[in-house]
């Protein structure tokens, strides 16, 4: 199992119950993290979209996660 620290913003902060969450998953990719998050927090599936950012940039599903990476949940943005 791999342990990652996730930071959440906007509506995901409310769905996960706080800014920071530690999650343990089997895989090491963004896609594996997404699967685990959807299982643990099925309400995430009701969002219009959910992107995952790694080290301040939007990440594709096959990106490998490192223990020191900054991982963030990016629900639909609405700045402006």
């Amino acid at each position: 199992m791999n342990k990652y620290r996730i930071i959440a913003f906007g509506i995901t902060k409310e769905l996960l119950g706080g800014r920071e969450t530690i999650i343990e998953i089997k895989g090491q990719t963004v896609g594996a993290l997404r699967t685990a998050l959807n299982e643990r927090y099925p309400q995430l599936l009701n969002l219009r979209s959910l992107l995952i950012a790694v080290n301040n940039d939007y990440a594709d599903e096959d990106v490998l996660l490192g223990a020191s990476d900054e991982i963030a949940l990016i629900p639909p943005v609405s700045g402006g």
Partner: protein
Amino acid sequence: MFFFVFLAYFLTFIPRCILLFNQSFQIMIKITEKSIDVQKIIDTVSSLSAGALNVFIGTVRNNANGKNVLWLEYEAYETMAVAQIRKIMDEASHRWPLLGWAVSHRIGTLKPGEVSVVVAVSTPHRKDSFEACQYIIDSVKAAAPIWKKEVFEDGEEWVSARPEMMKA
């Protein structure tokens, strides 16, 4: 040998300093809890070689979906917002001859009428300034990790978070 390497390094150092000095007065990215001073942003992007200066000012609307908005709560993933805006500006600088540019976005609680975002650019001619300004604000709205929650008399809602059909 060492002397020449040092000399070459030193000679490249001078123009780099000048570039940094120039840039520090003409570009700006800011995510702030304080109210935005529009005149200060105009001053930041002003350039004697510019023939046009274009400013977009986004303000808080007092209504959404036919309901009165009491206030908005803005939140940003600040380090990533700055990184994404930097990327947008790199692209804009390739497409248009920008002399100066600034992007400033408010976070925190904003009431109707308050300024939430300002984009300003200066260019030699006006067409480029209009196009660049529109590209920048459109891109910031699409890519910068910034969110707003509308607070109504009877509840609150994160804007665009859920599909339209799920709205009550």
